């Protein structure tokens, strides 16, 4: 009879631990995903910023796009960051600004249903500095 009682206590602890892990582990995994998401999102913003700065130093829209593309091509891809691509370039000489939009495809390290891949979008505006003063 005492043996059975001890067993029951042990089993209960085990069940409690398993139930606890069932809560903690998904939480930890979600935290991992969240960390990756925040980090990659910030990284995407920095790439957009860099691309906008390089595009702003070009004298025309075509070169601005090429420069932004070549800037983004330097972004290192991995199992997590699948790609960083140029989503749009708005080279507006009238306003004297260039707007760069980037899209980063991020694979979640812990894929959840309907959340195995996330698209991060970023937008950066810079003044076009390549144009000389008017005559």
């Amino acid at each position, binding site marked *: 009879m005492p043996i059975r009682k001890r067993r029951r*206590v042990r089993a*209960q*602890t085990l069940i*409690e*631990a398993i*139930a*606890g*892990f069932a*809560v*903690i582990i998904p*939480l*930890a995994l979600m*935290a991992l995903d*969240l*960390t990756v998401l*925040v*980090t990659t*999102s*910030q990284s995407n*913003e*920095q790439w957009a*910023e860099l691309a906008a700065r390089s595009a702003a*130093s070009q004298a025309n829209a075509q070169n601005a796009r090429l420069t932004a593309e070549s800037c983004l091509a330097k972004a290192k891809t991995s199992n997590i960051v699948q790609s960083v691509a140029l989503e749009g370039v708005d080279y507006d000489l009238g306003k*004297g*600004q260039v707007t760069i939009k980037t899209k980063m495809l991020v694979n979640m390290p812990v894929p959840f249903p309907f959340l195995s891949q996330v698209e991060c979008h970023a937008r*950066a*505006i*810079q*003044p*076009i*500095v*390549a*144009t*000389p*003063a*008017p*005559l």
Partner: protein
Amino acid sequence: MTPPVISTNKKTAPRRKQGAATGLVIFSTFLLIICIVGLFQLSMVMGGSRQVRNAVDAGVLNISKRIIEVKVPASPQYKDVADSTGNIGISNINRIWGKAYLVNANAESMKADGQAGSNTETAAEAAFGHAKNLNDMLFNKVSDENVLNMYFQQLAHQRQASMVKADKVERSQADTISIAMIDRGLESNLSYTAGQLPDRITAQGTTFGNKSYLKGYVPMQANNHQFAFTSFRQGEMPHLIDDTYFENNNAAKPVGGAYTPLPNAFKRHGEVDSVSGKLTAVACAAANPQRTYTLAIPYSFVTIQVGNTAKWHVDQKKIKETTYGFKPEEQKGIKDYPLPSGGKLYGNASLGNEYSAATTLLEVIEALPGDHNQAFKKLLQRIKEIDPDFNQERLNKLLQSAAFNKEEAPSASGEAQPRKYFIYPVYSSADNTDPTIKIGSDKQNLPSWLNPDNPPEGLDKTVIQENKQKDKPNYCWGYVVGGKSSSVKHWTEVYGDVLWQPGTGFGQHLGELRFARVTDIYFADEPDSGP
């Protein structure tokens, strides 16, 4: 006495074995959630901080880029160095000071040569005064906090700090100097060439590539005034700069001179009010108009004048002076002149022969032998103040290209008039930066800006004297009526004085080179013994 008994078998409540793990799990979960939320918040603040920094960077860069749009209207004296809209901005302020510097350098040189006229100092002072007024007006606008904030917010307001839930970045009030004069001692955007400045004036220059540029923020002396230009590095665009570099060169650290030159760097503080507090950032950026000009007085000209005088002498006494043209002609200069020995002298001369083969202005100038290059040096220096790339070879070609019309224009006095040629620039660009030097004598065909009646402010001085020639190319003869002998001793001396009358250029006229050709005609009251 019995010591107190301490009970050691005090029984504690038995631990509950059930739910021990649950509590631990709940505590761990709670701790984990706190950690996750904390790290997430920290990460968002850091990300937001970077967004604010980027936004402030972009805003300050926008100031540096758009500060060229801040302008003041040019005064009439400086219309020629204004932009195509007639305004002065940070990009062409060095042109203003360049013109004022040239005018004052010319004035100093004229004083040193003893050729300063009564209007020389007035012109030089006016040039400096007008330039300083424009500079000060522009400085006030360029350093105006409202103007700087406008350009800053124009871009910063479009930038969000989404990670800290702020929809725009605002400028923040900061008690710091927001303008600086960086790159002191490095090149300005004003190039110049050797020989462009008058003698005795040395510019503080620096070389970049194969061009020389006036140094920025280094005072240069001319006519007791100090001139300082704004540095704009060649090949650079507006860009962010280090805060320490900015502070080491901020406007509180004087450049020197009687005025404050325009700044070339700007600083702003930006901030956002986020849920997690106030985030601030600071950035500094250098402006650069990416446009280079040459040191010049665009609306100016020089003149060349050629005139001929015949001086009639009898027994070494000048009795008459006439003028003659550029075609061989015979003048009967002396009629019925009573000689001491008795009889009356009739004296004639053949004049204008020095130009018989001349068809161009250069040939007219070189009609008499002499070191004309010395005279051309003065002229060339002044033309270089219009077009720095002009040289002796181009000057010769220009003078050779000017056809010389020997026909006399009718004058009121009936006497031959000196011929005046204008050497002036024409421009196809709206900001007068591409001079093509032309030459012409017809006032009707001169550019509309050119005022041909503006005299040079200086006094004339002989630069060279052409070699004197006897009895050639002009010659004379005479005869006596009623004297002991019908013949009379006679000879001519033909020469020229080349005079230079300098101008400062403030009234457009940079100087006149005058060829005063003289034929001295001599008669002596003695029988002619010559061949």
